């Protein structure tokens, strides 16, 4: 248990017992819970979670909670506003010396992609404008998972969702939330994934040491919404990184740095073919046009990164 974690350098520094309670109603093999339990180990129990409606609000269903501290449930669009209220209240208590510096809490917003990429974006934008001192964690499972995986602004091109049927799947494109957040110049923005717990833990530890808005997007493989065997959660997450679909990067002090560059990128279809939501790209026959388009977009992204590096 790492309520006061030491610096994480290698995998051996990851905690071996866990702070987040078991017995939550998340799906078996939940990629979001996998990221969250590592995040919670690093942040510790001196936190207050502000949770917009989504899968993770099922974490705390009265009288059960996996948290060791407080938790507030807000409507889908207003978690950052809830965080503002709590931060202000804590600041007033500190100022009036009704709590000590030791008793202060880290305010952590927890929302899915539906809230982060879509209906909660306005409140998030405002919180960054005001340089609210908080951590925002978006668990991104690329759709409205809790209600049966309808498409969201985070759904990738061509994925089948319960509202995007047909041979080509979702016609839109995944919104670039990382860049939208970076454009606000907050203290910190990072992408993470549970399949790389070391990169994740280092970034959360870094965020924890900073002040101001610290924004995290965790790609969260979802066995239920993405339609794959739950045992594949980590393999799919690892492939998202290895194929270049999910770049691991961070923004701080005006600069974006990739924390892991897949030098030998695996073909994107290795990632796609494990997931039922992309099965129509392979059966009854391969959709070469769409597969090539998806690959080309990933290639174009990394070409830009490589040019920028030189």
């Amino acid at each position, binding site marked *: 248990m790492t309520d006061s974690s030491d610096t994480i350098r290698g*995998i*051996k520094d*990851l905690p*071996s*017992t*866990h*702070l*987040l*309670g*078991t*017995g*939550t*109603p*998340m*799906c*078996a*093999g*939940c*990629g979001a*819970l*996998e990221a969250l*339990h*590592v995040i919670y180990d690093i942040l510790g*129990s001196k936190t207050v979670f502000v949770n917009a409606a989504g*899968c993770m609000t*099922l*974490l*705390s269903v*009265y*009288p*059960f*909670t*996996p*948290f*060791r*501290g407080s938790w507030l449930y807000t409507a889908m669009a207003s978690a950052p506003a809830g965080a503002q209220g709590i931060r202000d209240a804590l600041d007033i208590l500190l100022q009036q010396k009704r709590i000590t510096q030791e008793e202060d809490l880290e305010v952590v917003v927890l929302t899915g992609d539906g809230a982060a990429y879509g209906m909660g974006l306005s409140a998030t934008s405002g919180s960054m404008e005001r340089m609210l001192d908080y951590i925002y964690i978006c668990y991104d499972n690329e759709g409205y*998972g*809790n*209600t*049966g*995986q309808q498409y969201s602004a985070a759904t990738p091109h061509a994925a089948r969702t319960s509202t995007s*049927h047909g041979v080509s799947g979702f016609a839109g494109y995944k919104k670039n939330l990382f860049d939208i957040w970076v454009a606000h110049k907050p203290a910190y923005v990072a992408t993470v994934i*549970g*399949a790389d*717990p070391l990169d994740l833990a280092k970034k959360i530890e870094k965020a924890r040491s900073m002040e101001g808005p610290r924004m995290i997007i965790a790609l969260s493989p979802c*066995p*239920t919404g993405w339609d794959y*065997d*739950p*045992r*594949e*959660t*980590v*393999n799919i997450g690892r492939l998202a990184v290895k194929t270049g679909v999910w770049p691991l990067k961070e923004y701080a002090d005006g600069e974006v740095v990739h924390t892991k560059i897949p030098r030998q990128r695996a073909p994107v279809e290795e990632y796609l073919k494990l997931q039922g939501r992309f*099965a129509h790209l392979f*059966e*009854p026959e391969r959709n070469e046009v769409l597969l090539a388009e998806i690959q080309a977009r990933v290639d174009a992204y990394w070409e830009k990164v490589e040019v920028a590096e030189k």
Partner: protein
Amino acid sequence: MYRIRFHGRGGQGMKTASRILGTAFFLEGYEVQDAPRYGAERRGAPIFAYVRADRAPINERGIIRHPDLVIVADDSLVPIPAAGVLAGITDHSLMLINSAEKEQVWKQRLNHSGSILTLPVAADVTERAELPYVGAACAGAAARLIGVISEAALEQAINDELSDLGADIVNKNLHNAVAAYRAMASHAGLVKEGSLVSAVDYEAPDWIDLPFDDARISAPTIHAAATSVLVKTGLWRTQRPVIDFDHCKGCWWICSSYCPDGAINVVDAKPVIDYDHCKGCMVCVAQCPSHAIEAIPEKQAKADEDAMRLEIGEIT
């Protein structure tokens, strides 16, 4: 009106079963409602789906409280109160349980004087990938028990509902549904239509008025930490991961970090799986680099455990 309630776990295809049955009724000329109950869509969660069918327009809405037929796709749901399998069951209700145990055992266990049948098809599904086909078998069995749905209508309904999933999946579902349909031949038409409910006879329950309390009193507050551990999510498992300590390298961080539920902790430098909470996702089995974790069917694991407890005299 026929009222059918499906109970299963997320991932077993209950929503699909209700759609197949609803469409089959429709093809036979019935007015139909079919709908899953809104709730968490996750795998393993108790899932409810409902079908109403009548020759006349249906004015009833909402969940089915007094079913004529109850289909239970997973017998481990029966003792779980939240699954509500036994809610509103009367002598009139027929229960069909997907179970390896005998009908007589269930009749005695549930003290149910109405009919209970067990579904012999797909009783031993241990591969998770096979789970969705249980739903099709349930729909097939239900169609025959109701007795007004022809095999052709059942097949047509499966084709209509599942065609976007590809020929392979349609065929597997057809195979299971038709096998279950035929297995129930001797019970065809056993389900009897329930009578219509009239609002005229409605009597309000004896409400107890509670005064409105201040939010500080009435809002749900939890004062203890991590109370979720009281929920035994280990009941969800169909397969159990078992660590072979002869092969475990004691790296500890891999299974422990990847377990989404944090159900693997390290005690004395050895990983220990908390079976009260392990949901059986098998991420640890897939990730262990020395292949020291094996997946065994939960039923077998339980039987082995009981045999061992019997041997050491813990149970008789």
